């Protein structure tokens, strides 16, 4: 079925958050934290727009819209709306609405709140563009934009070293994965000749049948696994908890980390259902699920516990997507929806507890239920959904995914086992996060805990209640959301019928659920012992990918600094020798090897005064060589330069002569100044060998340039350009001085580049002189320091 073309409103919906990002700081200056209310309208309207697609998409409709972006490269800004992208767009804009509200309450009074809103909106726009992107390059650009905005958000609290490290780590891992994806996309475009996702999906077997399937598979997986924090790339996600909680709730649970899963689901019809796919994905996903839950149990920080279960959930999603088995895919879609709702809510609950009680260490929290009743209610609803208990969407998701793993062709038993253990541990964490802080005796917390403002509890309440409602209307949920999304995954229109309670009570999923709950409860009661055990095991191992990342970065830094030291030893003389030897080699070697040497010229006929100027130039050079002091040498060099200027004048190049004259004057002045500045001794104390070496280099460069010029002038002269300039200089550029007309008009852009270089070079020299001053005046040396401060003022 070919997608229907729709109007550009959807394109505008993708761009709307970017506009909001511009407005947000202004509104925040006017309304302080209450700016969250008008700002939340933006994602709310986007949500309404995409809600309009629910009904047409549920009967199998797909839609595209596009405007040309860089048409010469075939790059369009285009969107593709089907079940999968509608579900994601609704999640992003819906949860985004409440995240904006939550951010208003969470960062109330923060001096940079406007900037924070801005970053959030930038991210939201990037994420929408990513899940809706039809053109592969559009998709990639938005993919990288999510990495960059995530970097900004994680590093929002940029004064803390931990934030900065986490931000850089996330950027390196996800950005690096993005580069793999780019390579994959380029391969896909080369193999299929298609740039639009919709066209790719229309002929799904092209890549699988080509010889390039394996590299494309690896590269796409590289992008997806880094973004979705699959083991062993999972370490950046828990570290990203350095970000303010609204960021964790939005990016690192509901949206950005799901981009990898989105990509896998999107590519499933094109890349999936192969032996490779059904082996590699479940393997990585299963390991990630187990590693994530085990590491989560070890944590006591609420946010970190949630972060590791997010890693685990992403693993579960990848594992299920890797089955290519319809029932498991259905479980994946359901779990994706359920997870976004309950994890977003739980993160916000954790943030509210942190905000109101002053700590999020689960061992220090207890008895908050009477102080924070609304937050407690939301935490319970979300926690039950996460535990997979009825009547919540999390329960339905777990039932279906057990159907999926049980019926999994081949390795069903292993997958079921992994899923049961993972879900049981997930239940442990859900209980620890949602129940532990609220029950038991009230503990002393750093702040006196009480209910937060409506901005803080609106999000968790709505998200957890939606999780309940969707489960209470299972048929509608199935028809409107799960079925269409599943259709995108399997590639053909599929309708499903969901029920809250399974038809048969004695069936594998129900039994597995019971085992899961029993196991979870037992483990929860032993939580402290379990935590100590895992902590002991991890200490015994002592090394993890997180440490490995630091080692890799340290390795890169030391290798690059070694190379830098090798290439830039810091000794001016070495640079000059290398530069001039290279220059001499570049002109002399090709001339000698390729036979480009000039013929022996005839002695030109010149007048007496021309010869005398030549003589002056030579005398200047001789004076340089025999000069006793350096200052004399510099001035003698000036003599030679002036003589050359006069030669230019004699042979009809007044502009050149004029410039040469000024340049020579200034060079002498500046060289003399540099000499006094560097406190060089007035005399040159080099050994005769060193003088021989530099002399040889100087002679070869001079000879090389001279011979090249002679060879060039012996060629027949092509007058095309001169004739052009002579003819048109006055007629179209209204100038009789051809040189100047060339400089400012015919070749004006060259000159613009040159003056930019001049200005930059000036800046660099100025900076170098300042650096020198600073080193000469060490800090703490008071009189000198004040002097340099004064000179800075003068500057």
């Amino acid at each position, binding site marked *: 079925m070919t997608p229907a073309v729709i109007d550009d409103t959807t394109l505008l919906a993708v761009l709307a958050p970017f506009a909001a990002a511009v407005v947000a700081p202004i509104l925040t200056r006017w309304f302080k934290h209450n700016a969250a209310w008008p700002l939340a309208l933006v994602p709310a309207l986007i949500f309404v727009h995409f809600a309009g697609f629910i009904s047409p998409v549920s009967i199998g409709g797909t839609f595209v819209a596009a405007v040309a972006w860089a048409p010469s490269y075939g790059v369009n800004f285009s969107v593709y709306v089907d079940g999968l992208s509608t579900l994601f767009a609704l999640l992003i804009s819906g949860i985004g609405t409440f995240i904006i509200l939550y951010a208003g309450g969470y960062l109330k009074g923060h001096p940079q709140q406007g900037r924070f809103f801005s970053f959030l909106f930038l991210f939201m726009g990037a994420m929408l563009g990513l899940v809706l992107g039809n053109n592969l390059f559009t998709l990639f650009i938005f993919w990288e934009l999510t990495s960059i905005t995530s970097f900004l958000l994680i590093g929002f609290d940029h004064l803390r070293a931990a934030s900065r490290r986490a931000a850089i780590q996330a950027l390196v891992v996800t950005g690096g994965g993005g580069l793999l994806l780019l390579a994959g996309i380029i391969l896909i475009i080369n193999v299929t000749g298609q740039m639009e996702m919709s066209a790719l999906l229309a002929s799904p077997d092209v890549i699988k049948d080509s010889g390039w399937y394996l590299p494309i598979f690896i590269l796409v997986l590289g992008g997806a696994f880094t973004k979705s924090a699959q083991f062993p790339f999972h370490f950046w996600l828990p570290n990203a908890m350095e970000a303010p909680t609204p960021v964790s709730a939005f990016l690192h649970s509901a949206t950005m980390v799901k981009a990898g899963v989105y990509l896998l689901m999107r590519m499933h019809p094109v890349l999936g259902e192969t032996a490779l796919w059904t082996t590699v994905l479940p393997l990585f996903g299963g390991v990630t699920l187990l590693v994530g839950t085990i590491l989560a149990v070890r944590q006591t920080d609420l946010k970190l516990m949630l972060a590791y279960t997010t890693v685990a959930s992403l693993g579960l999603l990848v594992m299920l997507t890797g089955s290519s088995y319809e029932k498991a895919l259905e479980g994946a879609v359901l779990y994706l929806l359920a997870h976004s709702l309950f994890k977003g809510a739980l993160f916000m609950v954790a943030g509210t507890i942190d905000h109101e009680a002053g700590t999020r260490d689960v061992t220090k929290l207890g008895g908050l239920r009477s102080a924070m009743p609304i937050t407690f209610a939301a935490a319970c609803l979300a926690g039950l959904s996460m535990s997979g208990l009825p009547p919540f969407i999390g329960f339905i998701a777990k039932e279906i995914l057990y159907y999926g793993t049980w019926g999994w062709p081949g390795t069903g038993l292993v997958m079921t086992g992994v899923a049961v253990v993972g879900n049981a541990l997930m239940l442990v964490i859900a209980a620890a996060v949602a129940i532990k802080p609220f029950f038991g005796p009230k503990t002393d917390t750093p702040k006196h805990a009480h209910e937060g403002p409506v901005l803080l509890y609106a999000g968790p309440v709505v998200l957890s209640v939606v999780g309940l409602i969707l489960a209470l209307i299972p048929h509608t949920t199935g028809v409107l959301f799960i079925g269409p999304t599943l259709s995108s995954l399997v590639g053909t229109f599929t309708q499903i019928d969901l029920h809250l309670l399974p038809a048969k009570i004695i069936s594998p999923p129900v039994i597995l659920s019971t085992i899961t709950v029993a196991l979870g409860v037992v483990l929860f009661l032993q939580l402290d012992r379990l935590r100590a055990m895992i902590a002991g095991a991890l200490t015994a191992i002592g090394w993890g990918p997180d440490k490995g990342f630091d080692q890799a970065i340290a390795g890169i830094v030391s290798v690059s600094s070694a190379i830098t030291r090798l290439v830039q030893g810091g000794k001016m003389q070495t640079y000059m020798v290398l530069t001039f030897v290279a220059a001499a080699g570049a002109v002399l070697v090709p001339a000698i090897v390729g036979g480009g040497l000039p013929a022996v010229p005839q002695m030109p006929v010149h007048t007496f005064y021309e010869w005398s100027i030549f003589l002056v130039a030579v005398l200047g050079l001789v004076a340089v060589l025999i000069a006793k002091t350096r200052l004399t040498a510099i001035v003698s060099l000036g003599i030679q330069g002036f003589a050359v200027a006069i030669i230019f004048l004699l042979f009809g190049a*007044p*502009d050149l002569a*004029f*410039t040469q004259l*000024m*340049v020579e*004057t*200034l060079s002498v*002045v*500046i060289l003399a*100044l*540099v000499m*006094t*500045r560097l406190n060089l001794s007035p005399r040159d104390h080099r050994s005769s060998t060193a003088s021989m070496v530099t002399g040889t280099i100087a002679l070869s460069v001079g000879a090389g340039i001279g011979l090249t010029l002679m060879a060039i002038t012996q060629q027949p002269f092509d007058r095309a350009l001169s004739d052009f300039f002579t003819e048109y200089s006055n007629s179209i*550029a*209204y*100038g*009789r*001085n051809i*040189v*100047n*007309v060339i*400089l*400012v*008009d015919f070749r*004006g*852009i060259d*000159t*613009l580049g040159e*003056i*930019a270089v*001049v*200005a930059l*070079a*000036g*800046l660099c*020299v*100025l900076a170098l*002189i*300042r650096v020198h*001053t600073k080193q000469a005046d060490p800090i703490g040396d008071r009189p000198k320091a004040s*002097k340099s401060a004064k*000179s800075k003022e*003068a*500057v």
Partner: protein
Amino acid sequence: MRTVIFRTIAPYLSALMVLYSIFVLLRGHNEPGGGFIGGLIAASALAIFGIACGVASVRRAIIVHPMSLAGFGLFIGAAAGVISLFTAQPFMTSQWWPVNLFGVEIKLSTPLIFDIGVYLVVVGAISSIALALEERESD
């Protein structure tokens, strides 16, 4: 270097050189000269003034930091190129506005603005270097 004669003459000499540099700059389109040469002359004028009367007096005389001159020059150089975009012509297409002033036709143009930009960049960049170097010497 700082003889009485030099110190007395230097301000006048510098003033004349700056004046001359502007003359060279403006006549550049038809006679030998132009922004680059003019800029070099003005930079030497400032260098002479600095050697004779100290860097502080030069900085007072030109009011702004020489690097700002260079930056401004680069800006108007680029801006002169942008003007043609408004007439739907390619970047840096020259625009001419002949003005009749006291019976003499003066051709104002974007190349002229651009040339002034070149002049300022050259003066600014070179005299920042020269002044920074002289400063330490005179301390």
